[in-house]
């Protein structure tokens, strides 16, 4: 596949999306990933809108309109119920329906952290990485050293310490993830910029006297972003997994709101495998969501990297 590395004009957006979908679906694993991700995103959007409406109209019942049960209602008599037709995924220690709690928490347990973190990291990483790759010199050296240092600590462990320093709230966790996540994107953007910088059309644009801002967006950013999109797709899964690990350990929680990682942790501490459904189902949920992104991202990387044979 020859690369077309020129200033991109907007093609028919819908048409190009559809051709990507077709490409992805040629691989059954990629197709499965696509389905999972689309379902996940759609659910998060719908549920998110319902929540917005609920707080706007001051009627919280909208939040669980689509759920089998009100996720907050307590029913001590029906606590610790194993999965049954009434409660497909069982109940927890105060009789709350686990399936409803899982569905309710998916948007903010997984979707918001993933998108917020990855998109912010891409933006920060793009600005820093592209400028480092393009300008070179001491700025580049500084950036490399700083990212080196950041990358010496495993992302999640660093996220833990930053979250703890920021008082371990949910928002604090998001901020700490963004701080921890941008170095990788800076590195990726820098590497791509170096590769692209060597191409003649950049020199041509400079000779034309293209303004730096336009150079950045229309030339550098657009042409370096392809492999990064594929990586970002995988990374959504990484952030979701990472956030759930932090939640499992007890960081980044929001009192009152069910959170997937926390549910798993509670399930374990209240009795595993006696009440296995409490720990297992939230874990499987994370697994499926992450799986979707892994399959999709893997397939995208193969396509963009030219490794896809058919």
């Amino acid at each position, binding site marked *: 596949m020859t690369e077309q590395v020129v200033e991109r004009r907007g093609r028919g957006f819908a048409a190009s999306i559809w051709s990507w979908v077709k490409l992805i679906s040629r691989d059954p*694993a990629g197709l499965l990933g696509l389905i999972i991700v689309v379902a996940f995103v759609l659910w998060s959007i719908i549920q998110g809108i319902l929540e917005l409406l609920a707080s706007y109209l001051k009627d919280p019942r909208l939040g669980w309109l689509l759920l089998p049960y009100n996720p907050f209602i307590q029913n001590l008599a029906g606590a610790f119920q194993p999965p049954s037709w009434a409660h497909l995924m069982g109940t927890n220690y105060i009789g709350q329906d686990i399936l409803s709690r899982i569905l309710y928490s998916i948007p903010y347990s997984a979707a918001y952290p993933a998108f917020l973190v990855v998109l912010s990291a891409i933006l920060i990483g793009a600005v820093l990485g592209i400028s480092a790759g393009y300008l070179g010199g001491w700025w580049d050296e500084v950036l490399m*050293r*700083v990212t*080196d*240092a*950041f990358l*010496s*600590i*495993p992302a*999640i*462990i*660093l996220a*833990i*310490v*930053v979250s*703890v*320093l*920021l008082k*371990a709230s949910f928002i604090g966790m998001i901020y700490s993830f963004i*701080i921890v996540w941008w170095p990788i994107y800076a590195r990726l953007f820098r590497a791509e910029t170096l590769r692209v910088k060597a191409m003649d059309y950049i020199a041509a644009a400079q000779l034309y006297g293209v303004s730096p801002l336009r150079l950045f967006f229309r030339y550098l950013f657009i042409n370096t972003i392809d492999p990064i999109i594929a990586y970002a797709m995988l990374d959504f*899964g990484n952030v979701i*997994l990472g956030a*759930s*690990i932090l939640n*499992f*350990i*007890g*960081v980044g929680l929001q009192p009152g709101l069910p959170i997937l*990682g926390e549910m*798993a*942790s509670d399930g*374990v501490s209240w009795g*595993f*495998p006696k009440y*296995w459904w409490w*720990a*297992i189902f939230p*874990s*499987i949920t*994370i*697994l*499926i969501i*992450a*799986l979707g*992104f*892994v*399959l999709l991202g*893997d397939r995208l990387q193969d396509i963009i990297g030219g*490794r896809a*044979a058919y």
Partner: protein
Amino acid sequence: MAGRDFVVFVIRRLINAVITLLILLLLMFILVHAIYTTPLALARLYAGPHPTMAQLETIVKEYHLDAPLYVQFINYLMDVFAGNLGYDPIYKEPEAYIIMHYLPITLTFMIPAVILTVLVGTVLGAVAAANRNKWGDYFIRAFYVFTWSSPPYFIALLVLLVFVYWLGPYTHLPASGYVSSLLPRPKVITGWPLIDAIIEHDWAYVDSYLVHMVLPILTVFLYSFGVYTRMARNVTLDVLESDYVRLAYIKGLSRRVVVYRVGLRNALIPLVTLMVLTFALSWTGAYVAEDVFDYHGMGYITTVAITSVDPLMVYDITLFVGISVIIANFIADILYGVLDPRVRIT
């Protein structure tokens, strides 16, 4: 291979590692001071829960928290290199001392897990690449995709379910602790309980320790396996498509020789980087394994520090983890020099 060239190479790498360490310390320092902006706020880090104003002010004076930032940083550096990480308000002991007690327990099971991941992952990755798009490849890929997307606690839970609750009667593997609580700790010689027990010929302890190590090792192995094997496969694929591999084929070398002696040997070079990545990743796996299996290592005290609001402990532990990764990186750099002539001979 000129000996002198190699020594120069090692020294350069060492300097590099030290610089990275210094920058790491600087970044952590900036991080803390960006969040805790006033001396009083800083004092809270060192104080226990619910400190009085008087206690805080004493701490500010004692630790010179009101000195200019660069002075504080110099002090900090000197402290770190002297091994002084502060005094933990909750345990009432020097942090370094506490950490050195728990660190060997984590490393003793983490390192075998990493070695296992690297060995199994390299072989399976190469096999998958060599048999691209055939059954072996699909099976290995399905396996690593599954382990990669699983949250580590899920893996731990599965391991628990399978090996303790289903196969329990056959395997007798314990589900918690790192050693039977009935056995006394061996005399401290190296600080590593397992090694101490071996030196002391305390075989009951060794036996119990090893048996308790199995499930956490398995958990960490399964957790890191996905990432490593996928990359090993991709790296091997890339190498197998390169020109010199094609030329080796064209020369008439057999497929086995080309794939393993030329391909895998060259793939080892980027794989070394992956090994460091796996080491870094396995810290995360270790944390979660320690939580689920009640294994009292670094992850355990981190969790305790979080619930008892002891940010200093969390900070220092993280520093240790960072240092261990920098050391791993340094070792990897040396390995690079050994494996890749382009690096050591310019």
